[in-house]
């Protein structure tokens, strides 16, 4: 391999120390962000959805921030169909038991597979990935608004905010009462406001309809749900804001392949251009997103 040495001599001289080699140990500790989790529990929630709790290395939990997600293998070993990993936001992290909880709604093949796991099974994880919700240090009052499984990252965000003594109003909408998050899932320091399409609980109609009352109260707004919800959100909030305050952070949902900014398959069109939502997202300032 003389040629190789010769060829690389120029480089050997000036190795890049920003590029630390990734050792197998880093993989087991999750330092490389690729690791295997063990399923700890699977509990039904919000109708047909489940709360999937899995083990995770301490190194992963310690750097995890609300709004981040994991790109999860949702495939039977030995089968290449379905092929791609699926991204899931963290619903809650458990430092005591070194575990993570995800809220999974069976939708297509991947989520159906994931929601059918049994305790003890292994699952391939990649993460934590993406940016996160950022609570300004001047903010005391946080308004959360979630639609369907979109509540997942907002629950972790609310957990932290409540712990840090911030005031949180959590608005959730669903088709019927069954689709709602049980109040018991949220700290009792949090004001939980619900809306259902059929009025079976709380306000009859969309979550965005009860939103108005809280906009001027809030220092920051955090939302997660389908894109149509963000359009309504914008329409409702815009007239009530005074020079772009309160700021609105939204988590954008995109199909993903790599989850690492390499494939550019998950971009979000923004005033800054096409941005990879797996690295510079999934959380965006609603003001810069082109819906």
């Amino acid at each position, binding site marked *: *391999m003389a*040629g*190789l040495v010769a*060829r*690389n001599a*120029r*480089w*050997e001289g*000036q*190795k*890049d120390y*920003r*590029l*630390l*080699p*990734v*050792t197998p140990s880093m*993989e087991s500790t999750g330092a*490389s*962000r*690729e690791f295997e989790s063990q399923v700890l529990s699977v509990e039904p929630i919000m109708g047909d959805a489940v709360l999937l709790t899995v083990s995770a290395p301490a190194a992963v939990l310690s750097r995890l921030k609300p709004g981040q997600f994991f790109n999860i*293998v949702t495939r039977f070993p030995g089968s*290449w*169909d*379905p*092929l*791609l*990993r699926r991204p899931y936001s963290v619903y809650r992290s458990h430092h005591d038991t070194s575990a993570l909880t995800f809220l999974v709604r069976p939708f297509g093949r991947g989520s159906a597979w994931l929601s059918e796991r049994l305790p003890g099974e292994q699952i*391939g994880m*990649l993460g934590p990935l993406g940016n996160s919700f950022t609570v300004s240090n001047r903010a005391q009052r946080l308004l959360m608004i979630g639609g369907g499984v979109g509540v997942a990252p907002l629950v972790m965000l609310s957990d932290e905010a409540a712990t840090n003594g911030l005031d949180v109003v959590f608005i959730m909408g669903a088709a019927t009462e069954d689709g709602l998050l049980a109040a018991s899932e949220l700290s009792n320091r949090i004001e939980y406001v619900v809306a259902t399409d059929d009025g079976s609980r709380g306000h009859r109609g969309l979550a965005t309809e009860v939103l108005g009352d809280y906009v001027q109260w809030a220092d920051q707004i955090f939302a997660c749900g389908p894109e149509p919800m963000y359009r309504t959100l914008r329409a409702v909030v815009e007239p009530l804001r005074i020079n772009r305050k309160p700021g609105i952070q939204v988590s954008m949902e*995109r*199909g*993903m*392949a*790599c*989850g*690492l*900014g*390499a*494939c*550019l*398959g*998950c*971009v*979000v*069109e923004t005033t800054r*251009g*096409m941005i990879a939502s797996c*690295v510079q997202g999934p959380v965006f300032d609603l003001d810069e997103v082109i819906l």
Partner: protein
Amino acid sequence: MSTAATPDLSVDLAPDNSRELRLRNPVIAASGCFGYGEEYSGIIDINRLGAFVSKGITPERRAGNPMPRIVESPAGMLNAIGLQNPGIHGFVKKYPPMWARWTVPAIVNISAELVSDYAMMAAILDEQPAVAAIELNVSCPNIARGGYCFGWDPLMSAEVTRAVRAATTLPLIVKLSPGAPNIASVAVAVEEAGADAISLINTLVGMAIDVRARKPLLANHTGGVSGPAIKPIAVRMVYQVAAAVRVPVIGMGGIMGLNDALEFFLAGASAIQVGTGIFVDPGLPIRLIDDLARWLDGEGFSSLDQIVGIANDGFRSGQERPLATWESLGV
């Protein structure tokens, strides 16, 4: 890494080029699936790779296609990214300086619609010390020929290869398009035109329809199919090309593990690229290096070249064959 040490995995992908392209192992990250390298730093030990290929670079900056850009397909995926990239000028400012500090050879993949633009980009890359080689993507529309894809035609593929060859002394890999009816004749043509190596296959053109929305799922309508689904087609093309040419062949298409990689080596590939497999399993390329070394060792081989082409009757025979036969048509 200790296991990887035993057999000789090194491979020379440009034996006739004085600016040689010698890799410490034959596992290369494929274009468009590894960004510019940095995206995977910290996830895997990039410097252990044989090499990596950059996202496709174009003469001008491209914003890429609207969303959705990717969708899953049976045992594969469709992508229509639209070559989102900073353009050759923005590219050279940013990435080669970063790569100069790495030990892993960086290969730049280039795409264009005009022969002159390909040559222009090659000339610029020629002066970049941190660029180890050029991979010429001929799966592009030749607007001077009504958009007929360069890679579908031996003459058009040879023309662009010749122009790039004249513009740079860098090791030149020509990446073939699986859309060519007779892939071996394109390979022979680009070899004669000065390619140091040939890589294949690029994605096949596919489409998926959203039945609920009653329109194509991808905003671009069509997209490139990659992953395990295309592996049999890729292995067949590598087998046919490796029999027709004498330059090294780099095989890719659906490699997800050691057995897949071995299929390509045995069919005649001197090196392999991994694309979609990295999305599914980021640890794959590094594991392939170790698994390959272990397998060679276990089977009693002391170097990789001992297995290249051993399943291929006509390997490097370069003999003239009929354009097709019942056999070669898979009948």
